[in-house]
């Protein structure tokens, strides 16, 4: 179901968590709320779920005004950052909780639980307790629990935040595919731009309680509305007040009319990617991102003076 958040504001004491926020999420979309910590993204998610009441504004889910509806009647699946397992229940008990509350027949619950456990690849662990599961398994259990009640909307708060890098990458990929399979409107919160770009079809960039820009990852990358979005989505090299993408800075073997000279200050090799920190004749510093092959061809060394071509820098009105 489509979600429409209109002009929502929320304050905690003197802190403004959400400042006149409006967001539209299409039915069946997979959307990321992206922003640094304290940007209001988790609060927005909790407002949609009904776990926080907005001070003003409205929340519509599937065209229905849900602003004042209690969380329990919103039919949203919510996956908490630290999974919020019911520690005294088995995995099966956790997953079947929502159905038990709805007084479904026992056989139906059992069948649905085993389907879901297969879906999240936890079959065989139904009798375990949460304390016996790994972080990634807990995460998938929490997801199965949220999906068991067939929610209209799935909301995930920093779903991969507490996992180690390898499990994270695996689960991201898996969430993407799961969404293709079940098509439930999904919003997840993240502070990791790579995660947002990899998983989500639409990204809402938030900062200081406001929405900076919303769009596909390509739109945000190519047409950032302001410097915050530009520097949050992808790497940035600053040149005074101007912003450059470091991979747009070319290092040339021969000087030409459009090039300028620069001195190689430092070379950082990160496998495939090589970062070259450069000092321009006027003393300003930028860094260029080139591939390992290019770096090898150019036979770069620190202290070397080379011709470089700078792209047209992007300037944002203050």
């Amino acid at each position, binding site marked *: 179901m489509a979600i429409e958040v209109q002009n929502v504001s929320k304050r905690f004491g003197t802190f403004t968590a959400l400042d006149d926020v409006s967001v539209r999420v299409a039915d069946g979309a997979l959307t990321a709320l992206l922003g640094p910590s304290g940007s209001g993204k988790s609060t927005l998610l909790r407002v949609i*779920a*009904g*776990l926080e009441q907005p001070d003003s504004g409205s929340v519509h889910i599937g065209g229905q005004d849900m602003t004042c509806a*209690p*969380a*329990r*009647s*919103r*039919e*949203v*699946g*919510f996956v*908490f950052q*630290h999974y*919020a*397992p*019911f*520690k*005294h229940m088995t995995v099966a008990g956790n997953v079947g*909780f*929502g159905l038990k*509350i*709805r007084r479904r027949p026992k056989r139906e619950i059992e069948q649905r639980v085993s389907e879901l456990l297969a879906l999240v690849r936890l079959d065989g662990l139904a009798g375990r*307790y949460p*304390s*016996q599961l790994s972080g990634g398994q807990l995460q998938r259990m*929490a997801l199965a*629990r*949220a999906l*068991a*009640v067939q929610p209209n909307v799935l909301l995930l708060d920093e779903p991969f935040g507490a996992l180690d890098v390898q499990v994270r990458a695996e689960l991201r990929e898996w969430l993407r595919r799961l969404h293709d399979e079940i098509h439930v409107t999904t919003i997840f919160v993240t502070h990791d731009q790579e995660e947002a770009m990899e998983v989500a079809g639409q990204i809402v960039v938030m900062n200081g309680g406001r929405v900076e820009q919303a769009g596909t990852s390509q739109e945000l990358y190519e047409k950032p509305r302001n410097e915050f979005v530009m520097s949050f989505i992808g790497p940035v090299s600053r040149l005074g007040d101007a912003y450059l993408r470091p991979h747009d800075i070319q290092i040339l073997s021969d000087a030409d009319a459009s090039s300028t000279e620069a001195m190689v200050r430092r070379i950082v090799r990160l496998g495939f990617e090589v970062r070259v920190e450069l000092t321009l004749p006027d003393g300003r510093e930028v860094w260029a991102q080139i591939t390992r092959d290019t770096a090898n061809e150019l036979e770069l060394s620190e202290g070397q003076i080379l011709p470089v071509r700078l792209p047209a820098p992007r300037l944002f009105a203050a």
Partner: protein
Amino acid sequence: MSASGAGALALPRPAAPAPAAGALSNDRAGRRRRLAVRVLALGYLALLLAAPVVMIFYRTFEHGLAPVWDAITAPNFQHAFLLSLEVVAIAVPLNTAFGIGMALLLERGRSRWRGALGLIIDLPFAISPVVVGLALVLAYGRTGWFGDWLTEHGVQVIFSVPGIVIATAIVSLPFVARETIPVLREIGTDAEQAATTLGAGEWQTFWRVTLPAIRWGVVYGVVLTTARALGEFGAVSVISGRIEGQTQTLPLYVQDRFENFDLTGAYAAAVVLALLALATLVAMNLLTRRGRERGT
């Protein structure tokens, strides 16, 4: 830090507890120090707790089992024993329900009066039980605030079981709340909110999620409440009137036998009280251990 300074600063630093402990165990002076601490702690316990308890047991069975049997088959003893159990059976559930409710109010509620409530709840710990008893007599006695109303409706509070129950409930009031509050704080609200988003109402969330999560705190509070309720003397002594065979609880009975030079009776009753307390502790231990084994 200079090398000479390190020697002078031989205090254990909290930043590195593990190596410090390892170094201590290898260190002769450290080992002697730990031994001294242990002897001191155990000696203190023995002097304060073990010796008197052992003495009571010894004195009780000094002349064999027959006098003990006589003591515990005495009608007044049996009445006191049953009365104590009755009072515990009423006061402990009341205080458990109240304590859990209070803990929820203080930890999950949004009232501005939480601070004041938190203070009031500890009052029974601060006030002497005798004062509690006197205050109850003043409030519920014939000349007290509710005296007329109670007399009209034929309810006798002081010098009878309701008064004993009230006095016992008051002095053991804070335990369940005090044991439950930190657990509630520790578990946080995530699981409760998860239950809400899954469609559970407040009542369902409490029974299915909150209560199971705090149950060990509650159990511990119940055990302390039971122990305190069983042993209460001061407040009950004032409000009960200490009528033999009617309003005499087990601790009052012990005192009564002692004053009447029936030492075997006093010791036997004391042993029964101690065993009841011990049984409560053992029951709790077994319960918690079974819970811990399941890892919940």
